């Protein structure tokens, strides 16, 4: 028996040596997530006849929708909801089909109906008016605070904090390249693949850029828009174009594997979004920020079960567990990234670090003293609310969906058409 055990151990050791030897250096792999996980607390009883319906624009093939679907699985596990109580409708377009599906779900007896895409909003509102006893919750929308419907709600997360943290990791990688002599400080240019010239995207890439700038002051960034939330080919082309323009690190706000795939092929480091792309891009993936929707699902279920009102606008942050980071790929990220990010997370939670601190960026060469944004989104495209207060651009405070749409110095938009 002992002999056998010894033999087994030898074999195991041999194999582990072989594993190390293959790449010449040790594989460090993914670290633990640098933000501590927030437990989903289910401190309420869910009746057996409770039902919740989810409407998703695409299916699990889109990283954006997959993120929502993973949260559905998580909340189901946490609450013990049965399969019959959770109805998931995927591939529902941003048109009349959304209204139909919402109506279908309401007729089936759903107490809550949640939709995940910006374009679903009008159709959710239409259904909400028809079914006042059902709660309609919509991610990324802008109308709840002005629509005045008791059963229609918007939600988002302060994902700009997550992007800022991912930006810090990117900046540290740039510093590592500069120190290693691979690029000069002036050549520290990042590329960003964005979907539309829309506040959600602008707020996202600006916070990413400011995160990088906080550790690497000489950084600049080029942004290429695709005009679509999900277009693998366009996203791949955009990433390749940015790489050809000497961008040494790429990030993206679009929902396919186009950009991360192009980075892996060209061996250019990539900061991802909506979840880890480590599996398919082990040589280039650094880190990914994402919104975890589980806390919001938990919140709305709790409200409905306890008969409490759901807030018209809900914006989850790091403390709620809505803004999360994946683990950091220690084979690609610069040394000390995990520790640095943990430090910045602490700063963000205790308020000593602010993402849109007006001292850290300029717009057209000037510090931003005041900005009136179109927060009410009534279709007039007219500014209505002052959002710069106490030396900070107050993102996602006046409503949950982002409204930062300024052109910060150091970022170049390569195309404006979208």
């Amino acid at each position, binding site marked *: 028996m002992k002999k056998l055990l010894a033999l087994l151990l030898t074999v195991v050791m041999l194999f582990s040596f072989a594993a190390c030897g293959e790449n010449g250096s040790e594989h460090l792999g993914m670290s633990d997530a640098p933000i501590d996980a927030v437990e989903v607390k289910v401190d309420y009883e869910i009746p057996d006849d409770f039902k919740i319906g989810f409407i998703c624009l695409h*299916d699990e093939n889109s990283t954006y929708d997959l993120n929502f679907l993973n949260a559905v699985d998580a909340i189901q596990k946490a609450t013990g909801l049965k399969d019959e109580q959770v109805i998931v*409708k995927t591939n529902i377009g941003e*048109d009349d089909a959304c209204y139909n599906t919402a109506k279908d779900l309401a007729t089936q007896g759903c107490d809550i109906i949640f939709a995940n895409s*910006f374009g679903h909003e*009008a159709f959710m509102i239409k259904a909400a008016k028809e079914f006042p006893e059902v709660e309609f919750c919509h991610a990324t929308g802008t109308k709840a605070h002005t629509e005045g419907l008791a059963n229609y709600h918007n939600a988002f997360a302060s994902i700009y904090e997550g992007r800022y943290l991912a930006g810090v990791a990117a900046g540290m990688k740039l510093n590592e390249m500069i120190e290693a002599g691979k690029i000069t400080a002036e050549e520290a240019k990042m590329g960003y693949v964005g979907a539309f*010239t829309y506040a*959600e995207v602008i707020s996202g890439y600006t916070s990413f850029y400011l995160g990088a700038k906080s550790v690497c002051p000489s950084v600049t960034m080029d942004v290429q828009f695709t005009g*679509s939330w999900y277009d693998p080919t366009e996203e791949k082309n955009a990433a390749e174009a940015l790489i050809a323009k000497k961008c040494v690190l790429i990030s993206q706000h679009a929902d396919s594997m186009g950009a991360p795939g192009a980075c892996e092929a060209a061996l250019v480091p990539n900061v991802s979004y909506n979840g880890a792309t480590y599996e398919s891009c082990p040589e280039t993936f650094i880190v990914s920020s994402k919104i975890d929707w589980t806390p919001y699902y938990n919140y709305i279920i709790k409200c409905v079960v306890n008969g409490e009102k759901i807030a018209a606008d809900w914006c989850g942050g790091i403390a709620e567990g809505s803004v999360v980071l994946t683990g950091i790929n220690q084979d690609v990220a610069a040394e000390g990234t995990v520790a640095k990010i943990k430090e910045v997370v602490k700063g963000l939670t205790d308020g000593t670090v602010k993402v849109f601190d007006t001292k850290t960026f300029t717009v057209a060469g000037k510090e931003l003293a005041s900005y009136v944004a179109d927060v009410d989104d009534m279709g007039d*495209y007219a500014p209505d609310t002052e959002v710069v207060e106490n030396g900070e651009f107050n993102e996602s405070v006046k409503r949950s969906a982002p409204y930062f749409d300024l052109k910060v110095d150091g970022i170049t938009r390569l195309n404006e058409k979208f």
Partner: protein
Amino acid sequence: MENTKNKKSFSFHIIKREQTVWYKGLAIRAAAVLLALVVSGIVITLLTDKNPLAVYKSMWSGAFGMDIRVWSLFQDVAILLCISLAVTPAFKMKFWNIGAEGQVLIGGLATVSVMMFLGGKIPLPLLLIIMVVASILAGIIWAVLPAIFKAYWNTNETLFTLMMNYVAIQLVSYFLKVFVKTGSGVLFPMPEFGFPVLFGQPYLLNIIIVVALTIAVYIYLKYTKQGYEISVVGESQNTANYIGINVKKVVIRTLIVSGALCGIAGLLLVGGTNHTINTETAGGRGFTAIMVSWLAKFNPFFMVVTSFIIVFLQKGAQQVSTDFRLPQAISDIVTGIILFFIIGCEFFLNYKIVLSKNGKEND
């Protein structure tokens, strides 16, 4: 053919069948559907651990489970049928118009533009008339351009119409950027400028319009001189020339009809259904319609059946993926199998396979 069994022979040939009697045809088709259900049942059980009977039940409920689903089913049938009617005259003429997608979208874009810029400024009835005219004109332009090039310079209409799709999609993208200043690319719907709602049923008017169009297209193709000219050009351009049909004129005129019908489909989708537009508004129906039309052998009344089958399968498949939390791919596989059998049985209805003896060549 039952006597041609010959153990040494492996050669066979395919010959065209005489007209099959209607009940035989019906029986063969029913058998094909049944066989398709059995095969997809086996596939479902092999790929997942679900009971195929439960899967079929879920498919049925996806299409007929509640009032809203039935209305939505007939609405989708109406739209698909309308586009199928539109492509039919062109295909019957052997003009390979694969640009219905773009023609529908551009019709929709014209409608939405009228709603945006004139909505609220002129009385609603006048607005509706302008929407109709604009959508039809836009559809015609998108269809007639490739037709003119084909008629006068014999360009390839397949490529031309296909490319026009991309132009239409990009135009929709572009105008969404222009219309929506926040940059979100999502145009808020304008139901106040849409079609009137009949008897509280938002889809009823769309359905009535398409029923009328179905009858009209049937009469046009079967009983008018123009319809006859389309068949002749489709059968043989030389014959058409010989008997004095102006082929150029017929090609252009037919594509005007085709484009106008596509424009109307766009109008129904935007003015009658969504009251907004995005690049997905046509949703691939421009291509599905080609299958609907071919399966029905260009007969508008058969197209009612074929478009119904296809929409039923789509709705059913979606319900299956919802009920069993399966990826949509599984339901698409089932739909594919069923369509494969339906299309496959058409082959056996038109041709028969005859095994022939070794060395004995026909023809």
